């Protein structure tokens, strides 16, 4: 895909408010993006995963506390 096609196809997902499709598009075409953008996208998935991991950990810990207390 050319850069223009990447941008316009991605914006089609945005226009349709299709967040899941947009995420999948980024993954499916990760290696088509210019080097710096590819690295940035790859890194953002890591930051996203860390934040979710922390949130899940927090939910699980609180759940454990409640189970233990009750």
């Amino acid at each position: 895909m050319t850069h223009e096609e990447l941008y316009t196809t991605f914006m089609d997902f945005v226009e349709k408010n299709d967040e899941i499709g947009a995420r999948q598009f980024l993954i499916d075409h990760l290696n088509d993006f210019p080097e710096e953008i590819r690295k940035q996208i790859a890194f953002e998935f890591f930051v996203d995963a860390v934040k979710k991991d922390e949130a899940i950990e927090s939910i699980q810990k609180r759940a454990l506390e409640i189970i233990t207390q009750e």
Partner: protein
Amino acid sequence: MLERFEKALHSQENPTNEKGYEPSLKEVLKKKEDSDLFGELLKREGKINLATRLAKGELTESDIEELDEYRTDFMGSMDRVKTVKESISKELIHAYTRHNSDLQKVISLVGVDEYESIVKDKLARLSITAPDDFEALYRSVESKNDYKDGYYKNLDERVVALCKEKKINPEEYFKAILVEDPDEREEALRTVVRKGYSWFGKATDWLSKGAYSRDDRDTLTDTSRYIFSANDDMRDAQGEVGYFLAALTSNEVIRNAVSKEIIGDPANKEVFEGFSTIKNEQPTKEKVQLDWNSYKAQVKDWADLTPDDQDMHRESFLDTQKELYEKQQSKKTSFWSSIFGSFFDLFATINKDSLK
């Protein structure tokens, strides 16, 4: 003036610096990468004028004192970056894929060696441009270091053991932890725990695909159905512990629950931008073209300029657009905000030649 101040700074600070050698302001500014990041820090703090005076070499005495305070902040951030960088390993990265299939896919595309290198390279900028995200990462890495690889397994195993002990219905437990609102989630969990349940019989039934398709299809909520469809392949492989882990992989339902958890303090909602909010701020060809037309109209004798001069104006215009866009995005920390932020270059690349 900067040199004079640097001399005074060296004579005062270096001999008593307990942390060992710490680069001076001059040294920070000498290295291109550090200098860029220091500029980002000033921008983040709204010190654009100070950054401009620094770039032009027009600093005052009070500017230098202020800059040195920011240098201390900067060095503190870089210390934390160093700590995180030293902890990043393939094993640690792998630990984050445990609950995140998107990350698994990205790593498989990039290759784990390169991925490790990308993460390490991007940490310093993250610490300056998105300090909240960096702090989340710092806390998480510290926590994982404390407990090493066994931590999550132990946490999940404890949940399983306690559910058995308290005769808690696992399906109800799942539904409860996925409640989006933290207060409502807590109440739901308490209700589940109080109810108790014949755990083993129900769990066996629930874990069986046959039971799901036969008896429970009509009564299961959309939430449960989503989890089932997303994790059929994981349940067989991971058994009982995996049964809890499986509910915590990335899918829409979980993302909502987790998003609320990430937002935490309602005050943070201002910086937690979702997909639909961010998309409205994305530059469009039409908007940029309109702005370009206005810009061009103000350039005297545009038609008489040489092609090189016209190109210079196009580049200057796009730089300004990018700066405005980055300023708009600079306080936002969500996944989509960062993705869109990185897209401006792609957008600019395809539009530079179309600015007629």
